[in-house]
């Protein structure tokens, strides 16, 4: 708990941690947006979400290894992951779309283990990072430092999320996706091929997770086993924000990033993951308790 007293003595440290948390939270919000899209349109919960982030991160790392700027990895990861998502849909996911939700959770959990172990075999279990070569800026006499790559990834995450939002809003395919989300059967009757809509939706989700992963590789670290943490973060954000609430997803994402950073500092870095998973349990129980209260008022 000595972390707390440092905050009181040096409030500027707290500011630094909050800034870092907000910057990293944008990436959480991006992957949560993808989860909300798939959940809303296809009515499945994709546990392999975090693995798409992880694979996107490895794309950026491979680009950096090849001698190019890892920033190139962002669009490339999105493209490659779109294909991965599309293929996975055509192979596996389409079989679980209209089934019991638990089947989809378990099937995507299996996919998550499969991708995680494949990455472990192919890339090794080492913790990797992609060096972007951008500098760190400092403010307030060097008390607050912001690395340019984190700032860039913050804005890129918003640009990507905004781009996807515009696409869903205005393009014809986006309208088809939204129509399928509202009522898949009616959409089929109106001549929409819902199967390809689902395939594109799943691909898009994988693509923005991949882009998020490339950003993570540049600002943070990537290793084969970090997938589940991102899945849980995304799930938590969507549960707190609600489906189809973009503003809520952004706020919850930034909030989670901040909360996690503060918890990591106060409790120690070894408990940061424990904090994420415990928070999930607490949030779900709290949400259920709130719903119970509402029911009681109705009575």
């Amino acid at each position: 708990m000595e972390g707390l007293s440092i905050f009181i003595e040096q409030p500027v440290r707290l500011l630094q941690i909050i800034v870092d948390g907000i910057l990293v939270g944008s990436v959480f919000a991006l992957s949560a947006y993808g989860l909300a899209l798939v959940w809303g349109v296809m009515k499945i919960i994709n546990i392999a979400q975090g693995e798409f982030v992880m694979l996107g991160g490895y794309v950026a790392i491979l680009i950096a290894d090849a001698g190019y700027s890892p920033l190139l990895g962002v669009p490339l990861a999105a493209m490659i992951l779109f294909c991965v998502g599309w293929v996975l849909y055509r192979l596996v996911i389409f079989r679980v779309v209209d089934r019991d939700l638990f089947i989809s959770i378990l099937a995507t959990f299996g996919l998550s283990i499969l991708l995680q172990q494949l990455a472990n075999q192919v890339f090794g279990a080492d913790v990797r990072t992609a060096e972007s070569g951008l500098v760190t800026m400092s403010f307030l006499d060097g008390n607050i430092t912001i690395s340019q790559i984190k700032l860039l990834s913050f804005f890129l995450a918003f640009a990507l999320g905004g781009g996807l939002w515009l696409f869903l809003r205005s393009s014809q395919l986006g309208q088809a996706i939204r129509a399928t989300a509202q009522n898949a059967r009616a959409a089929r009757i109106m001549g929409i091929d819902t199967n390809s809509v689902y395939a594109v939706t799943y691909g898009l989700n994988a693509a923005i997770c991949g882009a998020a992963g490339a950003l993570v590789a540049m600002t943070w670290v990537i290793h084969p086993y970090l997938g589940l943490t991102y899945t849980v973060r995304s799930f938590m954000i969507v549960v707190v924000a609600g489906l189809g609430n973009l503003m809520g997803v952004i706020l919850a994402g930034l909030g989670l990033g901040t909360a996690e950073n503060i918890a990591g500092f106060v409790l120690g870095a070894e408990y940061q993951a424990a904090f994420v998973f415990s928070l999930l349990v607490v949030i779900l129980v709290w949400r259920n308790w709130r719903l119970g209260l509402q029911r009681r008022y109705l009575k």
Partner: protein
Amino acid sequence: MGLIAAFGAPIFLPFMTTQIAFLWMMVVFALCWDIMGGQMGYNSFGNIFFFGIGAYVCAVIQRDSGLDWYVAFFLGFGAAAILGVLCAAILGAGILGLRGQYFAICTLGLGIAGGEIASGWDYIGAGSGLSPPLFPGALGMREMFFNYLFLTLALVCFFTLKRVYSGRFGLAINAIRDDEDKAEAMGLRTTRYKIVAWCISAFFVAMCGAAAGNMIGFIDPRDVAFAGVTFGVWMVLMAILGGKGTLWGPVLGALVFHITQELFWTYLLGWQRVALGLLIVVIVVFFPTGILGWLRERRTMSTSGGSEQ
């Protein structure tokens, strides 16, 4: 007949005693998952949490009590069971109110949170794990001891559940699975039944944990005690593979799965975990009713001349 084979197995196959002990453990895992997932419709990924609790409680008691090995072990074994049940009762009061996917993901988080907390906690060895004291008996006795311990556990678990399912309790939890709101409207105290069901599950799984920690000889927080992506998922998979919601299904599923898994470990060196991930997807997607469910479908099809569907 089966009993004789079960008791005699380590005598006929002495070099496989540990694998057979693991098989009994898998049977208990699958049976205990099925109380929640199959009979009550509450798909839990978090039963591994009680396994971890059991492993650590027993090992800590063995480490700190300073008693004779057997006394300390059975003391820890009992304490593990009691603490597992307590945890299930306390956590269940909060978590079992959740429905469907929220329950599944919440319990998934619970299991992993357990591992992460254990790997940060110095008192129980943090990330470097904990080793229970060595078994005092002669060479080869250790495997025998744990083998028969797990066999007893599996038998007790099986017959307890058989008894439990045939009575009022079994009907009540099946009613919760079929329609929880209606069951509640009929006057069933659903929350109480749900908590008791989870306690039964935790009771056996925690004892498994206590014994497994000693049998493996080393408790790693993430890979042994709270191994969500191995033991934790296998529980679910075995019950589904055999046919969930039946008594024999999980036993059969555990048998088939354990043999497959051992073969993977032997012949797919390095790639066994990839193959397991693939196996999960294949079983869940193509075989969701399990072996017993498939047999039942075939029988109804043949008796009704295949007129269904």
